């Protein structure tokens, strides 16, 4: 998925370069007269809307919710509660055994009682651990475990490829459904990331250049202009021209330094960390670690909000927390996509320059052809 996304972004970059060079002439669509055509057109518009930024967001959210209901039905209602029954059985056996121990050995014979109980406990633990490890016992009945919000997080973790693994499907149908859900969901997520990432990148660029860069640039320009006290000579004029050219180049490039992108991500992670550390009573580092591991789609699952592992109380609060966490992750992935979008241009250029500087990459030919094309386009245009 990461590879695919990287390739996609890179290709888009290339296309943008080409588009900038080439000629982009729009063409009006034809109007249709037939009723059938009208219907077709309607369908097209619907699909077209679905693939716009808003549509894709809605699609992803709807897909998430549908997935939540589906998994809740499959795993929760018709799920396999075998491990829970086994655990209950084990617990009752244990109580009976302890009772027998207590009955047989009087409490007064403390040493023996102690030995027997410790043995029993150890055995109990020995039974329980494989149950937890291999059969996925989590201490909650699946109907409670696969609550709506938990299923929401589960389906999110599937199609974003985070994969916490704190809740996993037990039934065969659940596994198959997970596979299918991922197959459909991952391209959708890719689409979401590219679309929303693009638009966020544009917004970010706009804000960035409006808010800071333009003012500073113009300031610097004015200062340098006022700095020249001498009368305008030819050399000075040339110098000014060069400066203007430089400025033009800078504006033409319009990229945002990588550090800003990283800063945005870091701030987002930190915000998430603060929120989660408040809710879950984690250490701040732990919460930031959780946010980072989630946003990078590693998803260890050792720290998951909502205490789905053994939570039995305050259900309402947990549900809202999980839903907010889902939203946080969705927005975060879009933000990561935005930074990817912003960074790749800069990174590619930097890397190319670096390699060219080192002489490992021969770029002269390509740039020459590009010059040719520019010249040609100027002639043709």
């Amino acid at each position, binding site marked *: *998925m*990461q*590879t695919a996304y*990287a*390739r996609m972004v890179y*290709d888009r970059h290339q296309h943008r370069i080409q588009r900038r060079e*080439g*000629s*982009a*002439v*729009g063409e009006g*669509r034809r109007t249709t007269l037939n009723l059938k055509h009208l219907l077709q057109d309607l369908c097209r*518009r619907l*699909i077209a809307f679905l*693939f*716009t930024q808003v549509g894709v967001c809605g699609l992803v959210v709807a897909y998430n919710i549908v997935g939540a209901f589906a998994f809740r039905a499959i795993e929760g209602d018709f799920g396999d509660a075998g491990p829970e029954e086994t655990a209950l059985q084990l*617990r009752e056996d*244990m*109580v009976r055994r*302890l009772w027998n121990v*207590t009955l047989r050995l*009087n*409490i007064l014979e403390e040493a023996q009682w102690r030995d027997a*109980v*410790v043995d029993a*406990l150890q055995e*109990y*633990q020995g039974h*329980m651990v494989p149950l*937890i*490890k291999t059969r996925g016992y989590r201490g909650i009945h699946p109907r409670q475990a696969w609550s709506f919000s938990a299923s929401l997080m589960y389906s999110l973790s599937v199609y974003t*490829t*985070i*994969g*916490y*693994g*704190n809740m*996993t499907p037990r039934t065969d149908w659940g*596994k*198959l459904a*997970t*596979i299918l859900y*991922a197959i459909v969901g991952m391209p959708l997520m890719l689409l979401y990331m590219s679309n929303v990432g693009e638009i966020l990148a544009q917004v970010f660029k706009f804000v960035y250049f409006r808010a800071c860069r333009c003012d500073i640039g113009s300031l610097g320009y004015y200062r340098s202009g006022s700095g020249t006290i001498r009368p305008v000579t030819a050399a000075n004029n040339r110098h000014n021209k060069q400066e203007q050219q430089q400025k033009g180049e800078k504006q033409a490039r319009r990229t945002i330094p990588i550090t800003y992108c990283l800063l945005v991500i870091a701030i987002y992670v930190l915000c998430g960390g603060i929120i989660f550390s408040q809710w879950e009573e984690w250490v701040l*580092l*732990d919460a930031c670690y959780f946010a*980072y*591991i989630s946003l*990078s*789609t*590693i*998803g260890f699952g*050792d720290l998951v909000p909502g205490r789905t592992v*053994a939570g039995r109380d305050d259900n309402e609060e947990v549900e809202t927390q999980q839903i907010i966490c889902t939203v946080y992750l969705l927005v975060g992935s879009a933000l990561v996509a935005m930074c990817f979008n912003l960074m790749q241009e800069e990174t590619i250029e930097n890397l190319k320059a670096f*390699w060219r500087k080192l002489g*490992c990459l021969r770029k002269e030919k390509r740039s020459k*052809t590009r010059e040719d*094309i520019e010249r*040609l386009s100027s*002639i*043709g245009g």
Partner: protein
Amino acid sequence: MGKCSWSGFERGVKLVITFVFSHVGLCAFVAGYSVAGAFLFKELEQKHIEVHYEPLRHRSACFHDLYNITERAGEELSSRDWREIFNSTRWQEEVMERLTDFEDRLVTAVSNQLYDQDPDKQRERWSIIGSLFYCVTVITTIGYGHVSPKTWEGKMVTIVYAIMGIPLMLLCLTNIGNSMAVSFRFMYRRVCCVCCRNTEEEDDQQPSSTTLQTPSGSTEPAAPPPYTPPPSYKPSRRNMLISPPISATIHRGSDNPFALLTGAEPSNSSSKTSTPRHPRPSQTHLILPDAEANRIVAECAAYTKTTVPGLVITSLEPSHNECHDYDTVPMNNHLSPSSTTHQTPEPSAPSSPLSRDAPTEWTVAKENGGPHIVIEVQTDHPPSNNSTRPGSPALTSSTHHASSTSLAASSSLSRPWPRQESSSSTGGLMPYGSEGDDSQFVHVRERPPTSPGKTLVVYNTLSGDALLEQSRVARRMALMNKGGFGQIRAEATTVFTDPITGQAVNGDMLGLSYRPIPPDTSGADNRVPIPIVMAFVASYIGVGALLFGWLEGWSLLDAGYFCFITLSTIGFGDFVPGKSLGYETQEAQIKLVTGSLYLMFGLAVLAMSFNLVQEEVVLKCKAFALWIGLMKE
């Protein structure tokens, strides 16, 4: 001296960096990175394991609680009549509650990997192999979570490690995927070459046999002596890599909009009326004035002089009545019974060694001064081509011709050629341009050794708007064609590919200045169909399922689920190789190594399949977007 040594050092640095960013170097770098990470995490995590050994604490606490409960019960017992109070129910309830609590803690501990039998064994989990597997799961973003850092140092280092490692892994995977895609294409081409061509033959004969029946099969043995490629003629293999699936799709070229160019001729319309037409047939702007066409021919001559072993120029006219002659012309001009065929030997350039070996010819078939100039660059070397074609050459050539126009039309994705001063060989070629015609279609088609796949389209520079219009329309057509929405899929896209070197032809080399299409897109025409790639990935998953089912004793569904979850980098961690053994035994470590090898290779396979599929998917999406009117050009 100092300068000299400095430059030597610089060169050394350059060499090192070049090596690092080559395939081998990148792989080695990733491997080194993960091994270094393994040592790092081993150091960091092994020290702190005892601190986190929680279940012992929980058990002792539980035991104390049990003792308290029982003691309280005992006090009650000692005070009164114990038979009545010391009913088991209350005691049992309390004990049950306490046990549930213990169980919860146990669940937390085990699912967060805090539990193991004892600290020594737990330390084994962060053994060098375990840490290596952990590092692999981090940088591939799988993140099983079967082990995860517990110390704050470990967490910080994990974050930094992932920041560095994930892009590195991405780079490595993309690189490996690229090279694997190239080799996969090659393999596909090699393996499927024969069968594809066979099916293609059948495809060819189906539609054309109704109208075209020529007895010209006997002319076949008169083929020119086989062109023996010099050992440096590697790209001919690459060219061979390209065609059959393409031509198989192309030959059904009658529903192509540009078939209308030929379809406008009354002779061909009989074979093409039954097929659906393109909704916008009016946009056939590939019409060039006379002089321009001449110049194009000249340019082609310049092109062929340097690079292409054989060149055939055919000029055809629309009002020609006999489709047999018309159709046979572009294929084997010197063999066709058409009487109007002229053959002129190409002035072979002494500079190119290939033109000496290859039988080069300029054949101008000119019937009634037609508007077509079909320039076929024909490397007629493989005799196997002729031998594998069972049918009459007229049949194949006719379809070839139909495809050539469609190809030429669809391949106009290429940039329009710049205005070019006619080269020295222009004078000799000028007469071949048809006089007295208003317009001509000019296609230069380079034929790869086995079958027609690639196309050379020559556009002259009609200055200004006409050019733009032309290229735009053609591009759009090509896009829709390739997307396969209502049109055929003419996949031969890019042109100007030097058949000798297989690279994009540099303009200077040909004495022309046009933009060489980067080889990345020129490799587009040896595309592997999506279902095959899908089947490949699925079979990889299936093999993995069998492997892990055998190794771990999982059911087939579970093993397949594990493979899918792993390769899609979701990585739940409910199934991890060696999990049931607790990661500490030798066997489990072997399983871990197997798992990580499978995983790395699988990710490379996935990257490869993305590489193979992506272009087509993008094209399809674009065509779809065009179709629904979301995107405008």
